[in-house]
């Protein structure tokens, strides 16, 4: 028989922890059970206690998840990059080894998948196929991590994720160290996040200022012709900064941000305004 959330609660305990962590195989007539157990004197008193316990439980659970989300995104996007890099390294090793045994062999993860589907003829093939399987598993894990990032970043920073795309949003969070720091970062810094090497070379007087950091992967930067790319990067960084601030300080979705960005980009791409102009 299952126990209710209130089992064994004393009069001065709220029971929020029980609501959050508990479980039961089957439901029951909990108000009646609670009155029988002496936890409440009436249905009305029971529902009062239930209201206090469920609102307290929902509040703490919500606050914990809101706090944790951006950090989970950061770990996950870094793990995604690690898994992708290792998958490629292993795939390269597989290709090199396989090439020594069969000059017609291929390269990359796709080749690993072909190889893994073959039967080993010699002990070396066994090792090679096993290695290819490890590369495939790592590549699959990279994909699974990407899907996780896509889901969680929409919770952690919905507006940023909508404007930047989930993966770029996650990378910006990782580079800034969290939503809190990203929200406090100036737009000009957001523009060059991920281009720190080039930025410091510029500050040492050895290079021109970088036009963009990791936001280069955004279609609105990469897909804009070179003469306008600096303007596009600056405008995109501005909107992303606003999105991060709304996510951090307000938290609601503002679909108008995307329309603003689209309109701004349309003007940059069609206008006569040259790169470098305000």
């Amino acid at each position, binding site marked *: 028989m299952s126990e209710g959330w209130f089992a064994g609660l004393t009069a001065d305990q709220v029971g929020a922890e029980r609501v959050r962590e508990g479980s039961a195989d089957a*439901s029951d007539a909990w*108000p009646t059970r609670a009155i029988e157990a002496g936890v409440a004197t009436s249905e009305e008193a029971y529902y009062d206690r239930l*209201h206090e316990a469920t*609102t307290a*439980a929902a509040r703490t659970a919500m606050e914990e998840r*809101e706090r944790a989300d951006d950090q989970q995104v950061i770990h996950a996007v870094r793990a995604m990059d690690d898994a992708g890099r290792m998958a490629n390294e292993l795939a390269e090793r597989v290709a090199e080894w396989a090439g020594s045994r069969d000059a017609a062999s291929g390269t990359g993860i796709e080749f690993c998948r072909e190889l893994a589907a073959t039967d080993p003829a010699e002990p070396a093939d066994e090792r090679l196929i096993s290695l290819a399987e490890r590369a495939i598993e790592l590549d699959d894990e990279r994909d699974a991590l990407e899907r996780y990032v896509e889901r969680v970043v929409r919770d952690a920073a919905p507006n940023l994720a909508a404007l930047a795309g989930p993966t770029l949003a996650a990378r910006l969070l990782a580079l800034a160290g969290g939503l809190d720091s990203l929200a406090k970062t100036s737009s000009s810094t957001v523009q060059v996040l991920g281009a720190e090497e080039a930025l410091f070379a510029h500050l040492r007087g050895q290079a021109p200022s970088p036009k963009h950091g990791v936001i280069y992967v955004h279609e609105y930067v990469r897909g804009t012709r070179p003469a306008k790319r600096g303007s596009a990067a600056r405008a995109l960084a501005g909107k992303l900064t606003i999105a991060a601030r709304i996510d951090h300080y307000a938290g609601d979705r503002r679909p108008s941000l995307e329309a603003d960005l689209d309109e701004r980009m349309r003007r940059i791409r069609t206008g006569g305004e040259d790169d470098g102009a305000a």
Partner: protein
Amino acid sequence: MALPDGVQYRTFDGEERLATRGEPVYGEPVADGWRAWDAHRSKVGAMYELGMEPGLDAGDHVLYLGAANGTTASHVADVAGPTYAVEFAARPMRDLLSVAETRGNLFPLLKDARNPETYAHVVEDGLDLLVQDVATRGQARVARANRQFLSDDGRLCLAIKARSEDATREPDDVFADVLDDLREGYEILDSRRLDPFHADHLAVVATPR
């Protein structure tokens, strides 16, 4: 169709609109303690506008799955008795909590409706009504998993979102599959598309079998 006690058409700025009695929640028009129920923002509200009977009666014991920020759940709780509101996302919970602050009969639960064992120790059985509006794949499975909370003559009031099941297929094909799956645990009493209020949604009223 008879509206339940606690749901009425009232006049707001010269316009007849569906309404319930309670504290305003989302900036809806208010008159004489009644608050307009916006059918464009609420699938249950749209069901009333289309002449369906969602199965809500005054004082009912209700489980609401997919309460989101509490827009519809607030109207349901205005009419019903104890109302358990399950929502999986942390973000809308803040709004749902402020709805619950002014409604002692609304019990918010930050839980996943796909795992009813994580709230079966809180939600009582023998409920009159199960409202479901979850944007997840497997909506029929969720309804069947939560059937245990309903009394034998209870009602399921379900809004099926076609895009959540499969964004690439024709909505009518998706609805047919979901209804087939639903019939494993429920007898379908009524179903209807929610156009023009909500595109690609099918509202279903059913009872456990």
